[in-house]
Every structure is written in C-alpha cells, then in structure tokens.
C-alpha cells in the first residue's frame, strides 16, 4: 500500500460551501418566498398554498422512495411506470371500494419493486439499467391492462381522496392527499432515522463492501428498498388518479422520475449514496413546486420552467461536489 493517500478535508460547518450543502435548499425556499411576498400578488393566501401542496403531493411521495434508493447508491427510473400501473389497476377493482383497489394497486407496484430489486441485488444488474427496462415495460403493461383507454373513476372514496379535505368548508381545511403525504413523510423519516433497516440501508450506500463484510443482509435490504420505492410510487399513482378523477395510464407520472431525482438531490442526498435526507427531500420537492408556481404566476412560458429546473439541478450537484469527493 505505497499508494499516495490524498487527504481531502470536509468543508467545515462554518464555510459558505458547508452552509450551502447543509441548508441550501431551505435558504432557496426562503429566498423564493420572500421574492413572492414582494413581487407576486395573492401568493401568500391560504388557498394558493393549499393548491401548491396538493400539486406537489405525487412528486413528493415518489421522491421519498427515490431518496431511499439513492441512499443505497442506486436509482429508480421506473417510478412513473409504476404510477401508470397503479392507475390502470384502480378502475378494475374499484367496484370493491377504494381500500381494496388501493391495496391491489400497491401490491402490483410492489411486484415491480421486487423485479427491480431482484435484478439489482441478486443478479447484479446496474440499477439504472434494471429500472430503465421496467420504466419502458411497466407503462406498456399498464396500457395493455387499460386497453389503452382513459376511464373516469366516479367512486366517492376516490373522489374524496382527490378533492376532499379534513375540516371541509373551514378556512384551514387540509386536503386528504396532503394528509396522506404528511403521514408517509413521517413514516419514511422514522424508517431512515430510527430503524435497523434504515441504518443498514445507509451503511450499504456508504460502503457496500464494508456492509457485506460486517455481515449485513445486503441483498435483502436492497430488495426491500426497491419494493418500498415502488410501493410509494403506486400510492402516488393512486392519488394522481384520484385528483384527475380518471385513470390515465398513458400520461400519469410521465417524467416524474426526473422531478423526484431532482428533489432528492436538491434536498442534499448525494447520488453517491450513504445518506438519506428526508426533510431535505420534502423541501426539494416544495422548492421545485414553488419555482414552477412563481414562473406560472408571472406568465413565464413552461419551457423556461424546465430550463430553470435544469439550472437548479446543476447548481445542486455543483454544491454537493465537494461532499462526494470526500468519499
């Protein structure tokens, strides 16, 4: 071992770069809100915030699962297809009511997760390749199930999930979709920070070899991670369907993997794995939502919104660069 060891020091807590790495996403949100407070009429109204939160729910839920997968140094491109599959399954079983149909949709999503996870964990396929194949095949299967048709869903349970709120009619009513998202955020946060599974997942992302040599059930944990990610995507698919009041497997969740990955990375979870920032991921999703909303309210064409997203990804990755090099 005569090879030179180059020591790279971590950016200290005090440096500007260190602060940006830790709190960048929150600072960005604050800046954006201040801008809107000054320049955007009617932005600071409860109704507007309610709308923003409802709109961000699917991306946020998908991003939660994505954060877990990225924490293992993986990636899941099939989340949009899983949403489509969930959407396709719902009309078939909605006759039994929302809960049974939702459970079935989640199970179908989980099956995709099992396939993804098995390919990654047991066969050793690179995550990007394994999930890319399901990204393509999954939506195809969804279209087959739906017979390539758009079906409206009129079940009252589904409609209530999509459009109803707790404390209906009150000024501070909370949409059910937002409540579901909030519960899932808490569950995933607990999972990451308080359970054996979460700790092991992060260790695997930090050093898979060391985790294996420490006797961790690496393959089982990887499998479970992809299953969780897919199940969360299925839930996002259910909520997306409920909001539309229709099953639209051809377009639901299109390109959502990109938004979700952006939210995770902007939120401070490095693509190199070994860390999962749940709070940051939530904030990342919100930041993307607020940016879009700000641009919309100032009548900036959608194309600019996409370009802005790209700039933000680059910025986030640039800021994280120092941290990745430490590994």
């Amino acid at each position: 071992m005569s090879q030179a060891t180059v020591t790279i020091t971590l950016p200290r807590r005090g440096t500007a770069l260190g602060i940006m790495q830790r709190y960048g996403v929150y600072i960005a949100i604050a800046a954006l809100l201040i801008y809107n407070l000054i320049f955007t009429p009617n932005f600071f109204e409860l109704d507007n915030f309610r709308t923003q939160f409802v709109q961000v729910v699917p991306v946020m839920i998908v991003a939660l699962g994505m954060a877990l997968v990225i924490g293992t140094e993986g990636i899941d491109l099939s989340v949009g297809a899983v949403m489509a599959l969930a959407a396709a399954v719902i009309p078939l079983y909605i006759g039994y009511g929302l809960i049974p149909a939702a459970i079935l949709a989640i199970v179908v999503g989980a099956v995709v997760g099992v396939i993804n996870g098995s390919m990654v964990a047991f066969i050793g396929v690179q995550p990007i390749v394994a999930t890319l194949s399901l990204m393509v095949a999954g939506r195809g299967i969804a279209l087959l199930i739906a017979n390539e048709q758009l079906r409206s869903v009129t079940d009252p349970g589904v409609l209530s999930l999509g459009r109803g709120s707790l404390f209906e009619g009150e000024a501070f009513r909370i949409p059910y979709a937002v409540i579901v998202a909030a519960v899932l955020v808490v569950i995933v946060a607990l999972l990451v920070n308080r359970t054996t599974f979460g700790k092991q997942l992060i260790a695997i992302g930090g050093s898979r070899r060391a985790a294996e040599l420490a006797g961790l059930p690496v393959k089982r944990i990887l499998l479970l991670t992809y299953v969780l990610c897919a199940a969360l995507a299925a839930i996002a698919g259910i909520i997306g369907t409920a909001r539309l009041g229709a099953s639209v497997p051809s377009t639901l969740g299109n390109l959502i993997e990109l938004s979700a990955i952006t939210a995770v990375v902007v939120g401070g979870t490095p693509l190199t794995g070994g860390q999962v920032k749940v709070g940051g991921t939530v904030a990342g999703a919100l930041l993307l939502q607020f940016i879009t909303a700000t641009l919309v309210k100032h009548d900036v064409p959608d194309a600019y919104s996409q370009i802005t997203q790209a700039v933000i990804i680059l910025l986030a990755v640039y800021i994280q660069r120092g941290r990745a090099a430490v590994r």
Partner: protein
Amino acid sequence: MESPLTDDPPVLEARGVTKRFAGVTALDNVNFELRAGESLALMGENGAGKSTLIKVLTGVYQPDEGEIRLGGAVVTFARPLDAQKAGVSTIYQEVNLVPLMSVAQNIYIGREPRTRLGLIDFKRMYADARALLDTYGIDVDVRRPLRSLALGVQQMVALARAVSINAKVVIMDEPTSSLEAREVETLFSVIGLLRQQGIAIVYVSHRMDEIYRVCDRATVLRDGKVVHVGALDALPRMELVSLMLGRTIESSDRGGVTAFGSDNTSDAPPVLVAEDLSRRHQIDGIDITIKPGEVVGLGGLLGSGRSETLKAMAGVMQLDRGSVQIDGKTVRSGSVPAAIRAGIVMLPEDRKAEGIVPGLSVRDNIVLAALPRLSKAGFSSRRNQDAVVDVFMKRLHIKASGPDQIVSELSGGNQQKVMIARWLAMSPKVLLLDEPTRGIDVGAKAEVQALIDELAGEGLAIVLVSSEVEEVVEGSGRVIVLRDGEVETVLTGAQVDEEHLLAALAGDAGEAAEDPRTHDAQTDADAPTSVTDSRGERA
C-alpha cells in the same frame, strides 16, 4: 551463471530515480540496471516500490529526480506508448488485451497490415500472427476471440504481441499467478527463447522457486530503496527473504520474554477446526486448529495465501473444498452472516475500503454489525447503542470528539480500534486479524498489540496475519507458515522466533518442519545449503 560484464551499456537503466506522492517517497534514489539477454528478478514486499519502479520505467509515471537510459541514451517516456515504441513492454498480472477481438487483431492492434486501399489486410494479418505464435510453439486459431482461450494462452499472446513490437525489454508482473503448472512450463520455455534473442526480462514474482529457476540476478527493493543487487547464485533464499523483510538473522533474538503474546493455551478442546481449505489458484488444503485463548500467527510472504485463508474462514471467499467447524459444528461456507453467527469475525486488511463506512459516525460504525441485537422490533434503540459504544470507546481508548464524529476524520489507529470494537460488540469466539497494525502510528500499534494479548487472555481465539516478522513472532504462540497457498510448516514453542520464521518463509524446511508437506521444487540441488547448516548448529 555470472552476468556477463561487457562494455556494452545496459539495455535499460535507471539512475538516481526518486518518486514522491503527496509527501510519501515511493522511490528513493533508485539505481537499476538491466543487461541484454538477462533475466532479472525484481523483489520486494508490499509497498517496497516495485510497481512504482516499473511504472517509472514504462512511462506511466515521470520520475521526480533522476533519469532513465535506454541503451545508454537518456530517454523520457511521456506515455506508456512511448516506452512501448522504444522497446520496453509490460505483461501485467491480468492480461490487458481486448477479450472480444481475435487473437490476430490483438497482436496487431494499431499497426495492422494494410492493403493498397488502406483497408486491413486480414489474410496477411492472420498468416503473420500464425507464424509469430508458431515460433513459440503456441498452436491456436488466430481468428478466435481472445477470451475463448485459456488464461495461460492469452498471456502467451500478450507476450508474443510485446515481442513483435520489437521489444528489447519485457517486464513481467506476476506472470504465473493465474497459470496452471503446464502453462508455467510453456511460459518458461518462451522466456528462454526470448533471452536467446537478446531480449532482457524483468521478472516480478513472489514465488521463490520460480525466481531461482528463471532469473540470474536480483534487485531487491525495500521501502523505496535498493537494498541489494547481485547474482542469485550467491544469494541464499533465507538471505533474500531477510533483505526483503528488512530483518537480519543476527537481530533475531526473541526480544526478551517481554513478548506481547503470552501462552494462554490450555487443554481445552479447540474452538475452531478448519480442514482442507482450498480454492483454485489461491489456497490448497490448509488445516488450522485453534484453542480458546490461543494466538496463532499466519506467516507467509506476499501472495502466500494468508489473507485468503482468513477470508475462507470468515465466509468472505467461496471454497472449492474444505470445512470450518466452531465447537464441533460445521459453519456454512461462503456466508459472512453464517460465520458471524457462529462467532468468527474478521478485521479486513483494507480498512478504508472494506472496514469502516467512511461517511458514518463512530457510533454507527461500532454498532454496524450488532445493530439487530441492539434493536427492539426493528427499531434501533439509542440507549442500547450508547451503552455499547460507551463501553468500547472507553475500553479501547478510542480518541474521537464523541460518538457522533465522522469516522473518516479519525486517525488510522483509532479507525482500527473502531473496527475492533465493532467485532467485540458481537462477542465473537474467533477473531481473525489481517494486518491489524498496518498504517497506524507507533503508539496505537502498541495499544492494539496489547489489546490482542488482553483479548486472548480473556479466552478469545485469535488468528494474526502480519507482514511484520517481529509482530508475528512476538504476538503468536504458534505460527503456521504458508507458502504458495499451502502450509509450509508449523512453528511451535521455542521455534517461534524470527530465525525459524525467516527460514520457513524462504522455503528452507529443515528440522523445524512439523508438517511433512514440502515442495518438489525446493529439493533442488542449488537450494542454498549454507544457511540450513548454520541453522542446524544453532537450533
């Protein structure tokens, strides 16, 4: 065979070469000479600077000081390709050709014969390739993709390619490490042919038998310095090993009885019985038995199979044959979790890549393996964790700002203690230590050694692998010496001293041998006898 002392300048020469990496001196004023038609052994243990020297000679690295001369003229190889064009070729351990291309294409890649139209003249290429391989007695279909050939043949192709590029010097780095015995013979005869053509060979191997068979002279490196240059005839094996390890035979008194390895063996039944551990090309038929409280050293030079033996017992490496038993129960082989459950844990050699999880805290690293035991219904209990972490941070004197400090910020010695704590938290029965004190400072080293002794005193069975002769001798009650993946000999009692160990490492199995298995090759008449004699008197 004296090397011919002619007036011709050496075919390849390094003068006063120094190479530093980020403050670490990898080569220190190295002088190196290679003469036409000779075969020179480049010897040295891990970290001695062999690879760096090869890379400087072949243009991968530029020397910080000194110069390289080819046929007497100063040259600068800016890139490996420059060296190759000038006639210095390298054959690496793992063949560096293109597996999917045909044999002929691999030989002529980048300099294919062309037709008048500028297209590749396949006909001529195939014919040339066949003719070339014929001269070395290699009979293969040159159109077949390279990867369809046996590894040995692939290496011959690499060799043929090197020579066909007008090579004057061929550097071979561990050329036989993945070859069958028969393939090794072919390689040796090819080497003979090359030498007749006046091509000089630099042969890097840790297999003593091969060195003495193939090479005339040796250049020995240690810690980046040349410590010996001379004919192998005049260099007994034991002296060569001493040179490589930096231990002289005179200095081999047992360091008093203050050795850190005390004898804790009892009449207790063995805790671990490993039998016939075998894996192709790595280890072959290794038996180890160890009692509670015993420290068994695993001696051997680089590549002797020390680490592989540990990995086999720890479930890290799949076995072709053999079994490991703990307290009489067979442990499922090839499974780390099964080994850990049975009570076998291993401190890996490469602490940074295989041991610590660099981004996690000291706490998370210590409890990594024990996490399920410290949890309730899948929820990790901070209180249980802190109890364990607290105990081991105090007991092992882990110096950190606190359990929340990121482990990669700790010194090497403290990282190693974190690793030991991780395993002690599992209350193991057998602790396998692979180079536990490598790369840590002197103070931490003494602490770790004292700890090994203490743990053995508490009844833990320990297997210690170290490339430091002194550490093995002082730390172990018994030393199993490996050579080429087999048990060469077992040193017990008074035999556990540096002198016996050096002799065993050199392959001079004398009366010290407890295990009768010896090598055919080492009964060679030219094997150095003088050392055996002197040892006979002293023992």
